[in-house]
């Protein structure tokens, strides 16, 4: 039987997990603002108000963050499936969810994706909540000496798969050579420029030292958020009418296929990048003020993930209805964009100061290149991939020294 204090702990964990989910539901209503931007601001608030108060960090921040992450993963499916248009790279080959949206099956796709998410959480709990997790450490040890070449292969594949896209047949000579290299060249330039920016931020970030724990936030806002915002104002997209109902077609096969693919992909991500398991994602944001203490924390986070997953799935259907109504009423108005601009300005002003704004500007320029030239935006990930790959190969600091950053 739980003692009084422990019972209170359990209640606090449940409350803050659910609160995290509700906060994530609000966040997805603000277009193009990523969860990690909010995590950065919340971390700053935690450090300012709680300081070294471990009880607050452990009992409040952890379940809140777990709820936010799970809630964002589930609720973000709504705008990404129902309100997004295929970008330039997917115009000729729309992804399955975009095909469903075009055919008016957006709602069904959404529900299938949510079921897949729930299954993913269940499998995650099986892997991490039972002795199976001991094999993960062993696998990590075996793979740790191979991460660098795996990342380089990934980068090569990403750049090489950026083929000629214009489809215009021109006479031979310089014109043909230029046409053939246009997409690949711009992809390469985007990757190298964002990689260079990444080196600057990794080794000599111009931001104030009190913003260092979120060095990359302005760059990511500039690379992904602001260009999307600009393009969404220039090119308006009208989605087809999506009935708020499910058809009777049996989709268990699709669900199983998606679940297996998702689990395999997710487990691979745990190992491949080398940063995901130990220091990637949200842990990068919180490790400045929190270090896992004991198994107590581990199981508490698993509990928070389970509670948040259940809450998010229960809220998905009614929340989707709210979003449907909201988007119908706000169609054509500048409300979402204005809200987004306000959030961005606040985040940049509060968190990173004037230097942060300069980084956002430079990164926005890079982020616009793929959209203007019709190449894939994934090349902007050079901001993390290039410095990471160099660091994993043991030459990161040497390259930074050559560049005069050290």
């Amino acid at each position, binding site marked *: 039987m739980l003692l009084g204090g422990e019972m209170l702990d359990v209640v606090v964990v449940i409350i803050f997990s659910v609160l995290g989910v509700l906060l994530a539901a609000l966040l997805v209503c603000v277009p193009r603002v990523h969860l990690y931007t909010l995590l950065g601001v919340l971390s700053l608030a935690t450090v300012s108000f709680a300081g070294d108060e471990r009880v607050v960090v452990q009992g409040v921040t952890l379940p809140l963050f777990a709820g936010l992450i799970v809630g964002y993963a589930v609720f973000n499916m709504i705008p990404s499936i129902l309100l997004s248009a295929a970008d330039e790279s997917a115009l000729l080959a729309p992804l399955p969810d975009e095909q469903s949206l075009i055919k008016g099956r957006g709602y069904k796709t959404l529900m299938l994706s949510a079921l897949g998410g729930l299954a993913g959480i269940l499998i995650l709990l099986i892997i991490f909540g039972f002795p199976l997790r001991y094999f993960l450490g062993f696998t990590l040890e075996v793979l740790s000496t191979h991460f660098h070449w795996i990342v380089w292969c990934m980068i090569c594949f990403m750049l090489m798969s950026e083929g000629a896209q214009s489809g215009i047949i021109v006479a031979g000579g310089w014109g043909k050579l230029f046409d053939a290299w246009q997409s690949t060249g711009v992809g390469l*330039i985007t990757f190298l420029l964002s990689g260079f*920016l990444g080196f600057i931020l990794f*080794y*000599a970030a111009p931001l104030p*030292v009190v913003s260092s724990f979120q060095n990359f936030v302005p760059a990511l806002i500039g690379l992904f958020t602001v260009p999307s915002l600009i393009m969404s104002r220039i090119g308006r997209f009208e989605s087809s009418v999506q009935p708020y109902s499910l058809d009777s077609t049996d989709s268990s096969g699709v669900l199983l296929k998606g679940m297996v693919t998702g689990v395999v992909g997710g487990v691979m991500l745990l190992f491949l990048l080398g940063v995901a398991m130990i220091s990637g994602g949200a842990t990068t944001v919180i*490790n*400045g003020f929190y*270090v896992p203490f004991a198994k107590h924390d581990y199981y508490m986070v698993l509990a928070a993930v389970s509670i948040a997953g259940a809450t998010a799935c229960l809220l998905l259907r009614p929340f989707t209805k709210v979003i449907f109504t909201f988007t119908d009423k706000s169609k054509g108005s500048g409300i979402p964009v204005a809200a987004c601009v306000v959030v961005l300005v606040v985040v940049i002003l509060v968190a990173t100061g004037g230097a942060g704004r300069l980084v956002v500007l*430079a990164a926005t320029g890079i982020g616009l290149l793929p959209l203007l030239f019709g190449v894939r935006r994934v090349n902007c990930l050079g901001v993390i991939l290039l410095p990471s790959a160099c660091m994993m190969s043991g030459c990161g600091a040497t390259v930074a020294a050559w560049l005069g950053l050290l």
Partner: protein
Amino acid sequence: MNKELAELECRSCGRYVGLVSRCPYCDAVTAVAVMQRRMKLLSLILVVAGVGFLYLMTFSRDVQTLEIGDIRPVMNYASARVAGRVVRRPYISRTDGNISYLSLLVDDGTGLLRVLARNDVAFEIVDGDNMPGKGDSINVSGRLSVNGDGAPKLQVLVAGQISKMVEEPK
């Protein structure tokens, strides 16, 4: 004719072609394509210039000097410089005969900071003329690591980031 409409016609054959970059009838480059090409080129130049100036700004900036007592968790990953005295004998860890890391404990009067150098960087420092000993005053820069355990660390990334300070005779 409406100017906007005229821009949507092929400049060579005069047919309506819309917002395409090349005329599907005569293969001529359209007005839209010329404008797009200029915009793209301009944007590319501006981006390169923007990143270049950001680099110059970073390049010409001195690393901020901090007092150890002022280091806080939000400074995790910051590039910082610290000046202080080595208060313990430097610890050199070796694995299979090779130096795996060098650890120094520095005190600047406001607090204690662990300074770390790994592998080749540690070897270069130990093997070079700048290897500090107990009691030496040093000036060291690197990347701060402030984990939740409360003990900040400074990682030296290249050997040149650590230097002994010559004390003036009293």
